[in-house]
């Protein structure tokens, strides 16, 4: 663990990274890698030196765990679903499903059976991942530390890899449905002939429209990441206060996050629906 506040903060913001170090790399303890191989990074420097060939085990593990929890719960209800009087769990699931169904009905007018379940997955998954943030910042890392893991960050949405991973998925769907609905020429026309409908301005249009397109996944990912990361940093800063004073800030901030957590999940879902709706519509 860390000693100074700066180290403490840096430590809490570092993911548990499992990646490839090249032969000849000098480890944190002065030893040198005899041959290239996969290992856990013991320092932030090592983690960043691993480059692209690395995995954030904590991010991936917790996000998959939350996804499995979501699907397990919903599948459990789906197999036992009754058209009569629903139980508490089925009620909860149905309320969520109906909420998403209404969102999609309001925002998405084309016919596509993928959109509503996609939105449901995004909403509940992100909500569950964000909720992990309400677990006090030291609990799980301490347990992980006791098990010999140097770093452990449990909130996947504070890792840009996770948020970009999802927004790239959405981006690919936007491209796919744009091509499917409008055809290659229709999509090309939309990129080239808008907003200025003149052949001489096609390059300008292309730059503008492609920018608009690219900004969609970036704004999705960065909004979620930024909110969650900033909130996490504040939680870590509060954790640096003396024990008797922590609750004065921790409690209001956590209560505030009861609002922020579903709000961010909702915004990601809503924007996904809106983006995919515009991919289905001719402009």
């Amino acid at each position, binding site marked *: 663990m860390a000693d100074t506040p700066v180290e403490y903060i840096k430590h809490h913001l570092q993911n548990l990274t499992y990646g490839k170090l090249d032969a000849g790399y000098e480890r944190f303890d002065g030893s040198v890698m005899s041959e290239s191989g996969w290992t856990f990074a013991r320092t932030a420097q090592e983690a960043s030196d691993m480059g692209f060939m690395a995995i954030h085990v904590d991010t*991936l593990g917790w996000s998959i765990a939350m996804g499995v929890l979501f699907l397990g719960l919903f599948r459990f209800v789906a197999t036992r679903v009754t058209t009569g009087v629903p139980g508490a769990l089925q009620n909860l699931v149905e309320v969520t499903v109906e909420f998403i169904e209404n969102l999609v009905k309001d925002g998405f007018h084309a016919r596509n059976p993928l959109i509503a379940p996609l939105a449901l997955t995004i909403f509940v998954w992100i909500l569950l991942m964000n909720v992990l943030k309400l677990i006090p910042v030291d609990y799980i890392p301490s347990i992980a530390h006791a098990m010999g893991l140097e770093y452990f960050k449990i909130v996947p949405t504070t890792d840009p890899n*996770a948020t970009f*991973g999802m927004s790239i998925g959405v981006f690919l769907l936007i491209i796919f449905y744009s091509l499917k609905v409008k055809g290659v020429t229709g999509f090309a026309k939309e990129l080239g002939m808008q907003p200025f409908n003149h052949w001489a301005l096609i390059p300008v249009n292309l730059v503008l429209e492609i920018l608009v397109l690219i900004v969609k996944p970036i704004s999705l990912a960065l909004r979620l990441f930024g909110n969650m990361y900033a909130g996490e940093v504040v939680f870590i800063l509060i954790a640096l206060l003396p024990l008797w004073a922590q609750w004065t800030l921790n409690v209001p901030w956590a209560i505030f996050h009861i609002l922020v957590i579903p709000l961010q999940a909702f915004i990601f879902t809503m924007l996904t629906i809106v983006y995919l709706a515009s991919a289905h519509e001719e402009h």
Partner: protein
Amino acid sequence: MNINLTLIGQSIAFAIFVWFCVKYVWPPITAAMEARQKKIAEGLSAADRASLDLELAQEKAAQQLHQAKEESASLIDQANKRAAQIVEASKDDARKEGEKLIEQARAEIQQERIQARDALRTEVALLAIAGAEKILETSVDAKAHSEMLDKLAAEL
């Protein structure tokens, strides 16, 4: 905050979760919700229909009651009229019968009077003849004098 393979891993997980949700989670839940919605809608419309039916039935019952009352009133009316008629007719009959009886009695009395007079007359004629025989001391030839006797009898 390094961008690395986690990005791709997350995208793959995302794709798998969405696929699973599309295939195994969404359809059964929405199907059940739709089925329940339909059931409730049917129940509501059945209730509406039932209350409408009830209203109609009540209206019909009231109508029938009204009709029955009217019918019974007219029946009573008719019966009264008929009874009056019967009484009237029987009165008439009785009067006629009485008159007839009186008439008969009168006729009988008349007849009896005539018979008695006739008998008396014959008797008187016989008596007259007998008296005349006594007076004349001879018998009267009834044949010879029958014309005269009849005339006498008729005069009596």
